[in-house]
């Protein structure tokens, strides 16, 4: 297997021919691993996974770091595979950990590889907790470009969207992470975010105030993507700006580059009570994150790619949130863009957010 993208261990299944392939897919569909593919990414299309990790010049510090992490997993794998006591499950777990550690960037994966990593993550969750989750790797559909409109005359500041978002996207309950912020602004003062209050607690709507929500705007020219040193975040064909949580190194350049405060960082291991976990997940969306990676609104990719509205749109009781396909000339979002006086935040930056505000 010269075209294999990463080195794989085969713990306890040396005799199975089909498991030789790194994608862990036993169905034999792995022969679609070709390292050609899209131009534009260049060099890295060829170097992937194992090679990307090891065949680079690095300083001693980062080399040690990478080696330590990998050695831990390697040692774990070796010790379980050589152990007579370790059961099949422990061996499988070690195998999965190994494959996950050395898998490639999601953006470069073939459909089979995407399916394989999703299968591994589902199986890994099952092994660890005994519970089943559903995870999708559904790609962008042709003829879809997602856009969002927010009616600042309608928003009343109820924050039902925030609650729905936290639940839907399995956000860390400990640090009370929230993708959406609702800013309470004084009438007649313009859009003054410095003066606005995004953590009010009183009866709403408050006299003489209006409410404006911000989240990731899924810019068409996203500065966060440009600054990522490892290409762990990118814009998909349907316009969603997504993060590969397993490729992110947690440098937070994107957080600094975002002019809209759209990105969040996991300073600690995110915790969600088992009974509250949303088990309908997407690899690029609400699957469980780990410590030290970035995350943000994905327009609920696990919902929107199947035709459903994002959780915030569904939860809003006022109808202030409008979501749809910008390429469909008959969509409601297009009607709003063509008939209401819309504006976006910091339009002069040229980031081209796909998130418009309007008034009645």
């Amino acid at each position, binding site marked *: 297997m010269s075209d294999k993208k990463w080195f794989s261990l085969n713990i306890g299944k040396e005799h199975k021919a089909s498991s030789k392939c790194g994608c862990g897919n036993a169905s034999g569909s792995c022969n679609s691993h070709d390292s050609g593919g899209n131009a*534009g990414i260049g060099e890295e299309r060829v170097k992937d996974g194992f090679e990307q990790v090891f065949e680079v010049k690095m300083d001693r510090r980062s080399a040690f770091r990478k080696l330590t992490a990998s050695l831990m997993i390697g040692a774990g794998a070796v010790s379980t595979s050589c152990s007579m006591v370790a059961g099949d499950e422990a061996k499988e777990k070690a195998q999965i950990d190994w494959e996950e550690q050395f898998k490639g960037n999601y953006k470069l994966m073939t459909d089979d590889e995407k399916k394989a990593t999703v299968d591994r993550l589902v199986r890994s969750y099952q092994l660890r907790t005994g519970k089943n989750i559903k995870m999708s790797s559904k790609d962008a*559909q*042709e*003829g*879809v*470009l997602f*856009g969002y409109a927010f*009616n600042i005359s*309608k928003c*009343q500041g*109820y*924050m*039902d969207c*925030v*609650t729905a978002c936290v639940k839907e996207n399995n956000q860390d309950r400990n*640090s*009370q992470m*929230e993708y959406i912020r609702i800013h309470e602004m004084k009438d007649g003062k313009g859009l003054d975010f410095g003066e606005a209050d*995004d*953590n*009010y*607690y009183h*009866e*709403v*709507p408050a006299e003489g105030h209006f409410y404006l929500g911000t989240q990731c705007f899924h810019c*068409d*020219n996203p500065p966060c993507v*440009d600054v990522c040193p490892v290409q762990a975040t990118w814009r998909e064909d349907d316009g969603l700006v997504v993060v590969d949580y397993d490729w992110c190194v947690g440098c937070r350049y994107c957080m600094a580059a975002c002019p809209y405060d759209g990105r969040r960082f996991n300073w600690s291991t995110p915790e969600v009570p088992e009974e509250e976990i949303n088990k309908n997940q997407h690899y690029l969306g609400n699957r469980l994150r780990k410590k030290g990676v970035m995350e943000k609104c994905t327009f609920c990719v696990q*919902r*929107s790619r*199947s*035709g*459903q*509205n994002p959780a915030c*749109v569904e939860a*809003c*009781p*006022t*109808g202030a949130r*409008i*979501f*749809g*396909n*910008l*390429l*469909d*000339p008959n*969509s*409601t*979002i*297009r*009607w*709003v*863009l063509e*008939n*209401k006086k819309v504006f976006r935040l910091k339009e002069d930056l040229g980031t*081209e957010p*796909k998130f418009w505000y*309007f008034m*009645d």
Partner: protein
Amino acid sequence: MMKSNLNYIISLLGVLFLGMQFQSCKHKEGEYHSINDKIESESKNYHGTTLSSEAFLGDIKTVEVTEGAHSFLIPERKSHIKSYACTECHSKPLNQMQGADSEEYQKAHWDVKMIHARELTMNCITCHDGNNMNELKSLTGARIDFNKSYQLCSQCHSNQFQDWKGGAHGKRIGGWAPPRVSMTCVNCHNPHQPAIQPKWPARFNTQKVLERK
């Protein structure tokens, strides 16, 4: 000698400047100047998607509405009215029932209090038809079906009606993909008291308070 040099420099600058003009306004990737250009150009040959929001609608019954160029679905209303048909009680026209003593007839609709426009402007029979309680009536006396009560509201609230038809007012049900199902006026606004009362926000972030101390 000097002059030819100057000419040379000027023409070089001119070429450079022209080159910049063709290059500068393009973003690094993609071929469009702005998102509006991209939307306009890529939606020219739009021929739909395979996605549908039908699965997310649940078991609500809908009726189709066609207003101008817009055609979409709204939730059906009549089957949710507790004791429809109204004529099961309102067997006589309203004015004959009103005159009756309270002992003879049970007082009905005591819980309905009108807080909608001024008393000078509206009362029950502005919308309800005293002679046919099964239907509503327009200001000019035309019949309006309970399922299409938006036709009543739109008589005064014409701006909201425009926005609702286009999709800027009124929440959508299910998903963004077709078919479009939008809530109708009375799904959110009680027609007898259409104003929406203030309430407390759903959450408060205590961690944010700590972080900002």
